[in-house]
């Protein structure tokens, strides 16, 4: 595995996301967006970058590839959530509660705000009005925030379609769409809640929670092919794998990093591979492809039974030299991106993903 390419970008990266490529198994995406946080007023921005495609011959140790800034735009407040809707629409959530829709104009290489939902979270409150997560599925968008509210938006309408007002008992940290009409959220009390959009009222359809200490769950990701499997990352660095068909506790809880686990991601086309990044600076690649053969488990998802075959899980540190907190990661094909508080973007190519 070659050394990661590091670029110092003079902004602390809070979120980093690949632009979806129209044909993921054939074409590796080369463009990605980042959002920054915690900076002087007027310096916070959303930027779009392009990675030069790697040449055929492997680089001789010297940094040959280049990262180029395509365009950027000022953003009101910290970028606390970022998602690509399609090839040129980016959705962001801000620490002042606003959700903005940006369009990336390819010809002029500019980003402009197309529409925004002002103060969606928290209203006029001074604090606790940050939007903390955004999930999208076609034109439908779900947002969650520190005001414990879930908003469901439709991009063609100016006001939210559905609001679960103060539906959770404490700050909601992340959200994802599950099956049709279902949302999953995690909050700061170690709870994973499932919401049914068709139901009236502000109560969750189901609630699952952590065993042991009720630490905040910072992030969640849904298994790409089996939507009843969910991975979460906790504030104590623990990785949780949940089976939604089961009871109320996680199927597996693994002690992983020594700091908050900020982001967890399944590989989109090879879901036997999982990636996590943490406040202690480390980014790990979890490979569970050997678990199935070891357990002869047949059709069971390997993530649900890694407890039994922990030594078969191959965990490797992707970016060993990083010391500053790694806030966000995204993976597409065999390339991993990581954004850190050390004002760097790390690009790791040629990950061993079979």
């Amino acid at each position: 595995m070659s050394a990661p390419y590091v670029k110092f970008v003079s902004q602390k990266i809070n979120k980093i996301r690949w632009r979806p490529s129209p044909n993921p198994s054939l074409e590796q995406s080369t463009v990605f967006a980042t959002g920054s946080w915690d900076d002087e007023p007027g310096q916070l921005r959303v930027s779009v970058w392009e990675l030069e495609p790697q040449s055929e011959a492997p680089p001789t140790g010297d940094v040959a590839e280049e990262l180029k800034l395509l365009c950027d735009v000022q953003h009101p407040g910290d970028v606390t959530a970022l998602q690509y809707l399609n090839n040129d629409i980016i959705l962001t959530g801000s620490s002042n509660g606003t959700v903005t829709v940006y369009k990336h104009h390819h010809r002029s290489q500019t980003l402009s705000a197309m529409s925004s939902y002002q103060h969606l979270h928290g209203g006029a409150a001074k604090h606790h009005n940050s939007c903390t997560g955004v999930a999208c599925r076609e034109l439908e968008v779900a947002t969650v925030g520190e005001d414990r509210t879930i908003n469901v938006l439709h991009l063609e309408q100016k006001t939210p379609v559905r609001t679960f007002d103060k539906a959770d008992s404490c700050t909601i940290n992340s959200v994802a769409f599950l099956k049709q009409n279902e949302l999953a959220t995690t909050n700061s009390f170690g709870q994973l809640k499932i919401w049914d959009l068709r139901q009236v009222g502000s109560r969750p359809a189901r609630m699952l929670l952590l065993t042991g200490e009720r630490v905040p769950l910072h992030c969640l990701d849904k298994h790409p092919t089996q939507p009843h499997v969910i991975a979460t990352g906790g504030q104590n660095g623990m990785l949780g794998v949940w089976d939604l068909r089961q009871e109320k506790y996680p199927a597996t809880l693994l002690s992983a990093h020594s700091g908050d686990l900020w982001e967890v991601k399944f590989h989109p086309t090879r879901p036997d591979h999982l990636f996590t990044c943490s406040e202690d600076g480390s980014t790990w690649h979890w490979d569970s492809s050997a678990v199935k053969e070891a357990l002869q488990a047949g059709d069971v998802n390997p993530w649900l039974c890694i407890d039994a075959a922990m030594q078969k899980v191959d965990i490797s540190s992707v970016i060993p030299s990083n010391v500053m907190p790694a806030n966000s990661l995204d993976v597409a094909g065999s390339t991993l991106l990581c954004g850190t508080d050390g004002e760097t973007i790390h690009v790791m190519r040629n990950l061993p993903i079979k």
Partner: protein
Amino acid sequence: MAMSQAEEGLNCVSVEWGFGNKMLLYSSIRPPNCQPNTKVKETILREIKWDVLMHQPIIRRLVNESHDIFVSLQTQQFSVKQTGGDERRLVSYSRNYRAIIHACILELQRAAESTLEEADDYIMQSHLFREIDLIWSLAEIFFLDKTPGGVILPKLLEWVCWHFHGGEQLLQELLHSVQRDEGSKPERHNNYWPSVFSFVLQGRLVEARKILALHSKYQSEAFQRLDELLHRMPVYSPGSGYMLQEFELKWRTWQDECCRRVDGGDFSLHQELETVAKILCGEEETFEAMQDLCQNWYHMLISKLLYTNPAVKEFDLQLCTQACIDIYGGNTRLGPVDHILLSVIEYNINQVITESSTHLPLWFVAHITDLLHHAGQLEFARLQYAPVLREFLLLDYVGVMMSHQSLWQVAVDYLDYCPVYGRNHLEIYLERLPLETERKALKVIRMCEQRDLLDLASSISKVMGMRAFHEGHLGTALSWCLRSKNAAFATFISEKFLVDYAEHGDFSHMDMLDNLGQAMLLSSQLTFLGKYREFHRLYESSSFTAAALLLTTLLTTRLAPRKVWLSLLTDALPLLEREELVFSSEQTYELLNCLEELRMMEWMGKKIVDKEKLELLRLALTRNLGKAFIQEGSLN
């Protein structure tokens, strides 16, 4: 800057310093007004911030990159004697720092080319960093990269070649014009001889000979003889197996021959060739004539030494500097950079540090002092206050970083390596960081916990919890309260929950209270709250006996605070009214006991609630007692 519209009655401007690059201006009275009745119109506070070099986006890269190098350097151990391996490592760290300075200079130059308005600023900044690199590289030669035998000139020649490219520029122009006019003679060009002289002064004889070869009269005898002299000049290189005395002998022989040739008139037909030869002989007047090409005294110093005393020892260098300075106008013409370079040559680390901290960015002096400290050079120079000096410089640098919104994380790492005052400063800074979002608060708390500042971590959690409480987010407040592990705060929040329950008749955030787990043991109020919820759950799931037991326990162990006793007893009413016996006689006695206590308090003047309720409860309890007697008696 004038303060517009002087406020009435106020006659002077006062100032309060903020962090780093901020200050607060306001109008006030001097001497301060002691009379309480004087009305003062509202005063305006003006915050002033000035640009700091380190906060510019391009230079911010430098801050972050050097942070990585700094942290990696601190974890290394170096022996004081600096044996081979250690020295190489130190030099590699120094080179890493210089590499990022170069990257910064390149970025600045690129930025200067792309914008118009700020181009001047960028160019000025790139010059500043060039000066920093000049000084750093010289310091590296003198303090870190020690040459065996102390013969320092080869390294100095490399230094000069690296930083002064006059000769190459002249050559470039020359070659361009030669390419353009095919038939012309190169020697006609203005740059021809200056470029030859430049290369000779820098000791780059191969290039000089190549340029000479372009001359149309190259084949003539005079040229050939000069070429031969240039070719045969002995060059000292440490690993070449030469003994120093051997080299000196050879070199003297060579120079004597040069002088003989010049005196013998070999080059008398060609003025420029004679000049080159005179340089080789080390003639004083010729060097003085070359001052424009050398541009400054240090270049002149090295060039002169090359041709007068190439085996000069490092400590003897300082003896030769004055003569060169005088050629360039004497001591009065020396600028700050010149003074610093002079201090390096004189091995006066103290002076280097003092001058650098006055004239150059703090970044430079903080990092180089730290590097020298690790190399043992500060102790070697017998600076009595060496470790303290290093620490003060680092603390100043931290101040610069803390004045920027986002560089606090980098600054904290630096404070970790300040053994005496670092921790104090860390506490003060971390306490004052603005916390707009929960995410930032979590990061700061984690930093505190890692550094064993547990009180501060708990206090930050409390602040976040109170903030949530004031905005009506009781559940979030509870989650912060559990994080802070502070019993008093937990008691406070539990009471608020109970107030909430009393108002709404139902618990909010039941999902949290139901699942507190071990956390409920943080304070007795919180435990009560959790248990009370459990009672409600038991009741709803119709486990009446268990519910009754729990209720009684809550009252008898006095876990329940007195003010909720009445509502607890009222909760017992439906259980008492049930057909089957839920409360045993002992439990009923306990409940009656509590009722009596409540009545005593009422009688003593502390108003509880209406008497009717008390009577109702007494009735229900006595009836239950009767039931219990009958049932328990008959079981016997």
